[in-house]
């Protein structure tokens, strides 16, 4: 039988499947896309220079869905009614392409794909307009912002006191609007950090026993932030930076690089946690220096549907220079130069007492700190809640949001394992465990 010769991919370097799956908005989308890609719904697929994919896929509607993907970006277009973005069809098309099942010699894209691709090309060519940086206007704008934030925080302080004056009991009946309104005011006051914190509070009254205490904690810490900002001239500069960043003032990367402390080390990539809010995905990657023992947190952001930065992969060591943002407890960092990536091996685990002591010391510098990297040699246990317990018999609960964490139990099988995670006031959020072969498993 005659078979066409294997063609080498010419469109763009094919992606790994994991890279495609990382674009999915949630786990069900990943599953749906994988079964769609292994199924028989595709009527047509094609690829062309430079980095365009298209396909037609039978769905539940009478007419097949039309999907176009621009790999630069990436950007997607699909005629299906799904509100997920990217939808399973776009993901499945990317999976097919990643597996080498999309031909790149089928000719030009069909008209419906070509017109969208042309529109994309035009958009990219023009790009978003950049504002000219005039130092005078910039200074004026900065002063305006400080004034807005100050008045916004005054308003927040009054709102917080009102809540406590009238009693928190009423919060259980309040809808999301109760917190969304005050959050919107903080957006107007250019304090987005506060807005985010406030919006997150709407779920606290329904978070089970102890909700009242948790709400009071958050209100108290918010007022502490308002007071700290009001009295910022009295604060030491690093603490002032901590207060400003928690309110939502962001430093330009260039300024951080120019002024921040630079630390070279073999940074162990301990674990990462992806969060999503307001169609923005945030990846928190926790690092720890092998030599310095310093913890570091690298944040990366992407709109939903775009890939998050994947260059720090869990379980490896990055030999790199990190620059830390100025803060009372410098944690957030930027990777300045990455010299090398090495196969890490498990990090040295701490005891629970050691973790609690280091967190207490960090809190003394930054009272708002609610996440701290933990590397522990522990055995998972289940008393009334899932927990981890160390050789000294000390135990900490797992974070209720982390679920049953069965994979962690399976890896341990009742024996001690090295676990990396994020320690929070509500419990340990396990992120990575090292299995018997010393390999990092993302939990």
């Amino acid at each position, binding site marked *: 039988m005659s078979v066409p010769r294997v063609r080498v991919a010419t469109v763009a370097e094919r992606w790994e499947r994991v890279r495609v799956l990382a674009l999915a908005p949630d786990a069900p989308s990943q599953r749906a896309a994988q079964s769609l890609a292994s199924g028989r719904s595709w009527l047509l697929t094609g690829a062309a220079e430079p980095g365009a994919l298209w396909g037609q896929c039978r769905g539940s509607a009478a007419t097949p869905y039309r999907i176009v993907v621009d790999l630069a970006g990436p950007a997607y277009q699909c005629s299906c009614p799904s509100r997920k973005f990217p939808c399973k069809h776009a993901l499945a098309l990317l999976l097919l392409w990643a597996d080498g099942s999309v031909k790149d010699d089928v000719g030009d894209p069909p008209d419906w794909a070509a017109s969208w691709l042309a529109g994309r090309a035009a958009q990219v060519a023009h790009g978003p307009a950049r504002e000219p940086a005039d130092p005078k206007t910039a200074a004026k704008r900065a002063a305006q912002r400080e004034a807005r934030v100050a008045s916004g925080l005054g308003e927040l302080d009054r709102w917080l006191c009102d809540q406590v004056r009238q009693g928190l009991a009423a919060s259980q009946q309040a809808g999301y609007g109760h917190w969304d309104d005050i959050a919107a005011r903080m957006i107007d006051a250019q304090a987005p950090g506060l807005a985010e914190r406030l919006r997150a509070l709407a779920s606290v009254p329904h978070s089970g026993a102890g909700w009242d205490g948790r709400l*009071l904690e958050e209100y108290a810490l918010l007022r502490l932030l308002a007071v700290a900002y009001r009295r910022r001239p009295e604060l030491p500069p690093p603490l002032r930076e901590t207060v400003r960043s928690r309110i939502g003032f962001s430093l330009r990367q260039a300024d951080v690089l120019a002024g921040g402390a630079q630390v070279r080390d073999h940074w162990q990539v301990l674990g990462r946690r992806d969060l999503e809010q307001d169609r923005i995905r945030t990846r928190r990657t926790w690092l720890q220096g092998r030599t310095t023992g310093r913890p570091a947190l690298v944040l990366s952001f992407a709109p939903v549907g775009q890939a998050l930065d994947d260059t720090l992969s869990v379980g490896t060591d990055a030999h790199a220079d990190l620059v830390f943002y100025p803060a009372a407890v410098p944690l957030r960092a930027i990777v300045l130069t990455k010299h090398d990536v090495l196969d890490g091996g498990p990090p040295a685990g701490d005891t629970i007492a050691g973790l609690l002591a280091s967190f207490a010391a960090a809190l*003394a510098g930054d009272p708002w700190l609610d996440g701290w990297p933990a590397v522990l040699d522990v055995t998972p246990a289940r008393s009334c809640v899932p927990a981890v317990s160390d050789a000294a018999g000390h135990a900490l609960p797992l974070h209720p949001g982390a679920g049953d964490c069965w994979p962690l139990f399976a890896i341990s099988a009742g024996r001690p394992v090295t676990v990396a995670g994020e320690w929070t006031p509500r419990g340990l959020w396990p992120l990575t465990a090292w299995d018997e072969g010393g390999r990092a498993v993302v939990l």
Partner: protein
Amino acid sequence: MSTWQDLVTASLIGTERSAVPPVAVPGLPTPADAPADPAAILLDRAALLTVARRGGRLAGHADPLPAAEPDPAAVVSPAAGRRLARMLSGEHPDLLAEWLSATVTHGRRVPAHLLPALLDRARRVSSAGPELRRLAALAGGSRARWLAGLNRDWAFVAAHTRPGDGAWRLGDAGQRRGYLAALRAQDPDAARELIAASWDAAGPERVMFLSVLADRLSPADEPMLEAALGDRAQDVRGWAAYLLASLPRSALGQRMAERALGCMRIERDMRGTRLIAIPPAECDAAMRRDGITPRPGGGRLPLDDRTHLMLEVLARTPLLTWSNEFGRSAEQILAVPSGAWEPVLLAGWSRAAMAQLDQEWMAALINRALADGPPGKLFGAEILRQLVRRVDPALVASETIASRDAGPPPAIHDAITVLRFRYDMLKELDVDHSDG
């Protein structure tokens, strides 16, 4: 800390109606309450206590779990583990049983972190398809048993790995089947003897007995099956005939071969070589006893009775019959034109090849289907779908699998994808084996 709870209570009621409790943190001076507003005072005190409580948190205690027994089996390679993870997240889920079965055969086990997802998947399959549960329990090893002790959802693991006599003597239908299937996997002869000893007393369970025999079927099972052809229950007779037809050297196979040889011959004339098919005239009592139904059931293709008989006979005929009779290989026989009979012959041979697990025929049939282009006319898409899931993928023309030209039509695309996936999957597990 009662002071904290006092603060919470006051904040719930509100400072309009409640006093603000005083707060003291050991080692800290009492804060000077600068603000005049009681609400602000409460919040400031709460902030102090919040941070003090977070920083001063003490570890609790948790009772340790008993450790799992050590597992002598080595874990599969990382590549094989990644493939299992892909299947568990929705890719080719129907190949999961094959992955597990190969892992068990090679004496390997599932990577620990994937066990919870695997056990969840096995739990969700209906209890009518217990094979996946059994394989998951076996491939999971001692950790799977340990996990099952922690989560009632996975209780089925115990039934499949450590079935005691109790499961057989006292268990329900599922537990009895589990016991018998495990015994059959370990010691096929012992399972057959147990079935033989229980046969007379068993009523409806005989069908279950036969379905367990399907695993590791051997000529030693033939006498029992031949006897079951005379059973009163039609289901039992059907199963027995089906299993006997999967044993190419069985007496039933020989009877079928005689019938089949009367139905087909090769003719050479000036137009070339052709296969001539003459379907059986009727379904006599002997054919019925061998499991052939006189009329098509509710199949998708409307077949006339004689075509149906042809298909039934072909599907039960040992494939060796044809190579011996025609002196040609499977591939050569498939290349002989047979005119309008072609779809029927291909369907019958496909069913026979799958029942007899004849790799040469399966590979030849698949190559034929892939080379011929648009299926549907000759091959039902369903037959191709089943063939590519049973064939040893290494036997199918390697360029077919390597080819990236897996475009439409969908049935071909699906077949090539499955072949490629299985080829890589079995290679990974095989490499694993030679490592150990």
